[in-house]
């Protein structure tokens, strides 16, 4: 690898092949992520595009879209950028080529597993953490392989100082590992089914600690590292203020980790945690904007490049979107703003401003920068790059503006009241229909973004086609040791920056302390739930129905959390409590209301209403945009698996008596017969209905909001005895 040694210089051969592989994988999965994104956008605009197909329906496609965008597209892009820049900043080849390729193929296998299992409905029902336990383990294993390779490279670097981009990579690797492991602690039921050990408010807190910090440490810190490396490279001048980058780094990683609860404002989450989330989110304004300004001012003196160089157009626009998103994020975390925005499309617009603008354009800029360097040629067409930029930019603007307008419109309609305190728009579907035209605008915006990407694919293809046939890795001469290049003594932060283990431990402490202080108190549920057993657990059939609810991705459109807000209470009933979801594994509070909240839908409608609604929502709610679920009346319930599920729930502390556990399948069959008979009495004559999934789902829907025990109830431990 490094063979030539001459006058304190050694030859280093950078591993370009691994960078090329990750870069091409980025482009492949970008295409899939964007394509599925456009598909779900059109499905929301025009429900028949769900095609009545089980694996093609929005509830299953949406997790595929988010996972593909985050872990496949952004993930591969991060790895490409990190493998390229780390070698050059450390003046050495990656620690181990085998680990590099293990990481590459392992990650692609994980993505492939996700692409198969998510449409088939294997999901944990937790946003951005839907993948089932065997895939979770694989993610942990290949992340560790990546970490070993990365830290190994740092340890044998030829540059004493660890440049700021590498700090951001270090924090990413450490924190993502922590987030993934803690949020994925689950109890397997079968090969592709598990329940999280966390329940209700604990699960909500940990999930949004994970979810928010997945944005922070997967879509922000690694991209800031890329920004600190690739923007100076592209403009051929150092970052505006290196000292500002130091403050940016420490302030950002310390504050970000606390902000997760801003996803749960006005919910049943304890007030102190909500306030924590809000305050720390607002504090994020400072480091985020410090970083943005640092990135933009790197162009001081060369702003003319913005006119002439398409790569700079992408980078500057990306950093500008970073600034806009990190201004809007804290704004949305302020309780009074959250009242309007939460559960609406404004949040979707906010998220896409970040992913399409910040992450997407950073990746496009980086790709246009790397392709000619790695393939030793020029880009095929500069004008196609410019076309890509403007078409993609127009797409983002259409997307963001339509979603912000839709969200604010719907948020205001939800809370609008007349002089007597009655809701002005009590019919939920009315507030949805109002914004469907904006869904079309969003779909057009997404399509434009996709068209821009296809232009890029063509440009990259033609560029690689005209590259020289022989492609060798980059070879350079660098100083043999750092001692020859640094003579001044190192103290304080300078010295710390050279100590990888110490630096990494401090970075870990910065995120760990906040995590523990924030999460630990919420793990002690007893301080919030006074009674011994305030709610009854789900019956065996209800558990089966709940799993179908999760499998179909109902949580992608329906919340189960009535907030402590007058309009929420008037529309859906009394506010949800912590105890009501204390046995919910996973919690299903949701983050978006394309349909109404379901926390208290139990017993609101007869069984027949639910049966008709699931098969054809428009038969009971004219103009509903919900897909049909005809397969629920065909698919059979796996009664045998229910026994194992109840047993696992009991092992995690859900109070079932021995008889219920031992005969869970029989209990469920008896419950199903009761519902099937009721449907038959009302004219549904489907043979074998009592064994169909729709019956289990109806049982679950009818249980929502009905589990609180009243005075005089027995201890609730005997489910079997009541049937």
């Amino acid at each position, binding site marked *: 690898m490094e063979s030539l040694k001459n006058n304190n*210089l050694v*030859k*280093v051969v950078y591993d370009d092949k691994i960078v090329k592989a990750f870069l091409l994988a980025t482009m492949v999965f970008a295409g899939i992520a964007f394509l599925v994104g456009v598909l779900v956008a059109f499905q929301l605009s025009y429900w028949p595009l769900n095609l009545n197909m089980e694996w093609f329906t929005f509830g299953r496609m949406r997790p595929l879209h988010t996972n593909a965008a985050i872990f496949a597209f952004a993930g591969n892009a991060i790895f490409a950028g990190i493998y390229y*820049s780390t070698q*050059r*900043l450390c*003046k050495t080849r990656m620690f181990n080529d085998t680990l590099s390729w293990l990481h590459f193929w392992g990650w692609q296998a994980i993505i492939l597993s996700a692409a198969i299992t998510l449409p088939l409905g294997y999901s944990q029902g937790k946003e951005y953490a839907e993948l089932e336990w065997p895939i979770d383990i694989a993610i942990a294993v290949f992340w560790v392989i990546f970490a070993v390779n990365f830290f190994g490279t740092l340890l044998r670097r030829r*540059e004493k*100082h660890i*440049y700021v*981009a590498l700090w951001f990579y270090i924090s990413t690797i450490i924190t993502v590992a922590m987030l993934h492991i803690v949020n994925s602690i689950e109890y397997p039921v079968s090969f592709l089914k598990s329940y999280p050990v966390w329940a209700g408010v604990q699960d909500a807190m940990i999930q949004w600690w994970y979810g928010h910090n997945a944005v922070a440490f997967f879509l922000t810190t690694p991209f800031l590292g890329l920004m*600190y*490396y690739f923007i*100076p*490279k592209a403009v*051929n*001048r*150092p*970052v505006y203020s*290196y*000292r500002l980058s*130091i*403050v940016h780094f*420490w*302030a950002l990683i310390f504050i970000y980790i606390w902000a997760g609860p801003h996803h749960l404002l006005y919910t049943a989450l304890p007030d102190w945690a909500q306030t924590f989330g809000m305050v720390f989110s607002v504090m994020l304004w400072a480091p985020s904007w410090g970083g943005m300004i640092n990135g933009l001012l790197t162009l001081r003196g060369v702003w003319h490049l913005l006119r002439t160089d398409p790569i700079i157009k992408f980078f500057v626009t990306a950093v500008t979107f970073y600034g806009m998103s990190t201004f809007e994020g804290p704004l949305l975390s302020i309780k009074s703003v959250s009242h309007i925005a939460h559960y609406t499309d404004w949040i979707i617009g906010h998220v896409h401003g970040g992913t399409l603008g910040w992450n997407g354009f950073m990746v496009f800029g980086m790709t246009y920068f790397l392709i000619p360097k790695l393939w030793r040629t020029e880009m095929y067409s500069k004008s196609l790059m410019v076309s890509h930029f403007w078409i993609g930019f127009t797409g983002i603007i259409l997307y963001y503006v339509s979603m912000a307008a839709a969200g604010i419109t719907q948020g205001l309609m939800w809370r609008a009241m007349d002089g007597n305190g009655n809701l002005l728009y009590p019919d939920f579907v009315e507030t949805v229909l109002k914004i469907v035209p904006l869904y079309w605008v969003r779909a057009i915006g997404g399509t434009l973004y996709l068209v821009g990407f296809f232009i890029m694919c063509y440009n990259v293809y033609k560029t690689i086609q005209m590259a020289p046939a022989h492609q060798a890795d*980059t*070879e*350079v*001469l*660098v100083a043999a040791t750092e001692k020859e290049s640094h003579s*001044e003594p190192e103290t*304080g*932060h*300078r010295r710390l920056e050279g100590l990888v283990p110490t630096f990494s431990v401090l970075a870990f402490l910065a995120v760990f302390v906040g995590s523990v202080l924030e999460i*630990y*108190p919420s793990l*002690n549920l*007893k*301080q919030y739930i006074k009674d011994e057993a305030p709610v009854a657990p789900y019956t065996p059939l209800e558990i089966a129905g709940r799993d179908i609810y999760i499998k179909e991705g109902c949580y992608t459109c329906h919340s189960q959390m009535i907030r402590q807000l007058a309009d929420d209470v008037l529309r859906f009933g009394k506010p949800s409590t912590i105890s009501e979801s204390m046995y919910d594994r996973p919690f299903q509070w949701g983050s978006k209301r394309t349909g109404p909240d379901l926390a208290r839908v139990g017993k609101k409608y007869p069984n027949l209403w639910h049966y008709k609604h699931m098969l054809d929502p428009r038969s009971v709610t004219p103009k509903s945009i919900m897909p049909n679920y005809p397969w629920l009346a065909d698919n059979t319930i796996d009664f045998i698996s229910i026994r194992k599920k109840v047993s696992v729930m009991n092992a995690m502390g859900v109070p079932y008596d021995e008889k219920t556990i031992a005969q869970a399948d029989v209990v469920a069959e008896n419950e199903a017969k009761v519902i099937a008979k009721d449907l038959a009495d009302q004219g549904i004559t489907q043979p074998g209905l009592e064994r169909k999934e729709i019956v289990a789902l109806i049982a679950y829907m009818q249980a929502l909001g009905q589990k609180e025990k009243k005075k005089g109830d027995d201890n609730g431990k005997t489910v079997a005895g009541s049937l």
Partner: protein
Amino acid sequence: MAKLWLAHFNDVPLTLAAFIIFMSTFGMVLLWTFRKNSKPYYDKISELPLKDGDSL
């Protein structure tokens, strides 16, 4: 015991102390980073991305 302490956490002096420690640490990092005479060193470090090594 720890759970009880967390459940009834209402120690104003401790909260204040934590706040002061947090702010003063932040202030010290800030002062250290922007102290006098450190600019040349940081300027040198900030050039790292521009030096991949001499091409062969």
